[in-house]
């Protein structure tokens, strides 16, 4: 991250800005306990629940990879790509307590060949894109264990 720039969330309200232990902010139904990300405060997704009351719920910061891929070609706008373009990985991560799967980019430097289904990952904040004055932050997943020798 660049200290000369103001750091702002790329999507306000979706995650905390705690530099040590950031977390995604979802919602939790007061009646049935259903969790949603992004937060859903207007209705509960459970068809058997008509609750309209929800609490903010910080999601688990660690989970295991359900599946993963990468983006070898530059995604279209509104993605703000680096120039020159740097491919990145995307992981679908299973959160045990929430019984749900959440997507996120992997931190820079991780390649698909480094990953395996079941690997443990942890949520961090990282730069999504920058302009002259701001650095826009987003959540990403970072492998918990060091990369294996000889796997990229």
């Amino acid at each position: 991250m660049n200290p000369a720039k103001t750091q702002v969330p790329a999507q306000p309200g979706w995650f905390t800005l705690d530099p040590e232990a950031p977390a995604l902010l979802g919602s939790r139904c007061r009646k049935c306990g259903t969790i949603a990300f992004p937060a859903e405060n207007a209705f509960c997704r459970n068809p058997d629940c008509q609750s309209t009351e929800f609490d903010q719920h910080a999601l688990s910061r660690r989970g295991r990879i359900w599946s993963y891929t990468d983006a070898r070609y530059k995604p279209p706008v509104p993605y703000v790509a680096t120039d020159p373009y740097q491919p990145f990985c995307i992981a679908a991560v299973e959160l045990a307590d929430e019984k749900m799967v959440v997507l996120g980019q992997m931190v820079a430097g991780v390649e698909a060949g480094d990953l395996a289904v079941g690997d443990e990952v942890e949520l961090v904040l990282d730069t999504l894109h920058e302009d002259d004055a701001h650095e826009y932050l987003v959540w990403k997943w970072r492998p918990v264990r060091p990369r294996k020798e000889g796997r990229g």
Partner: protein
Amino acid sequence: MAERVAILGVGMHPWGKWGRNFVEYGLHAANEALADAGLAWRDIQFVSGADTIRNGYPGFVSGATFAQALGWTGARVTSCYAACASGATAIAAARAQILAGLSDVALVVGADTTPKGFFAPVGGERRDDPDWLRFHLLGATNPTYFALYARRRMELFGATEADFAAVKVKNARHGAANPNARYRTEVTAGEVLASPVVADPLRLLEICATSDGGAAVVLSSMEFARRHGHRRPVTVAAVSTVTPRFPQTVIEMPNFATDSAVATSGEPGPTFRQSIARAAYEEAGIGPEEVDVAEVYDLSTALELDWYEDIGLCKEGEAEKLLRDGDTAVGGRIPVNPSGGLSSFGEAIPAQAIAQVCELSMQLRGQASGRQVEGAKVGVSANQGLFGHGSSVLVTR
């Protein structure tokens, strides 16, 4: 069990990258379907359009747009949007109109003109639209999601890159015989595996392109069909357009997360893709073991294997065996995508689910020259789009 409606005519504008107005493709397909049915445009009582969202206002009111292009006649009209299931939803609207006795004969049309490259979201800054946000915050394109499923399949069932390539080789061979397909050359496994990786593990030749194209069908009551000399028409036995069931635990485009299963207990129900065809089988009173030919939405090669299981052609984890045994190639036990599939067509969203029904109809009539599934009497289509829309159509003869 629902009553049948007759498919009197089918028509298509060849898929390609023609760069013309989508209305031209729809009009071409509609006129072909009318000629195939032996009817005049003035005979049509109900017009059902499948909408395109990338061609301005005329695309949002496609039923009226096609009706105007054919010439206003005072026919009843509707326009349907349901992502990739738009075409089947337009068929469902026409079928319901006929089964309710409100109309005897209907024309269903879908057509699209597509931009180059990845499908991008509709323009503007729309921070309440998950489809816009997944591109902006994740750089997650459609192939991102297809690749997540593909990797998961490799992990769970031991699918290999060679299996995925074999799906492409099969579909390219089928498509080479189809005059309406966009890609009409056979490819080798070596060529597939030499094409660049787009989203690991999927390669360029394994991900469906976006195309221009148009498809149409003429549907009628069985009574109307008899009166007009169609003695043994192909019929629609069921149309399924069910929603997913909560909790939806498979990550779906364009979402950031699945539903949470914390509030539910017991065995998980069918996944969304499983429930789509299941509802069609139940409605028709026909089981998957009776199916002779299937058209499934092979957005990627790997996804075609998922569909084998989801539409009941084999048990979970057995799709690779079905493929390797040659069962799903024309000439095999249960051919899948004899048209060449999306692999040979590229996706023309509102036309695609209608095109599946066109292909199944031609198969059941024995008119699928060069790719005919001999003696086919029951066909099923399956399709899945964004935001919980999907469809399956069961046809019989």
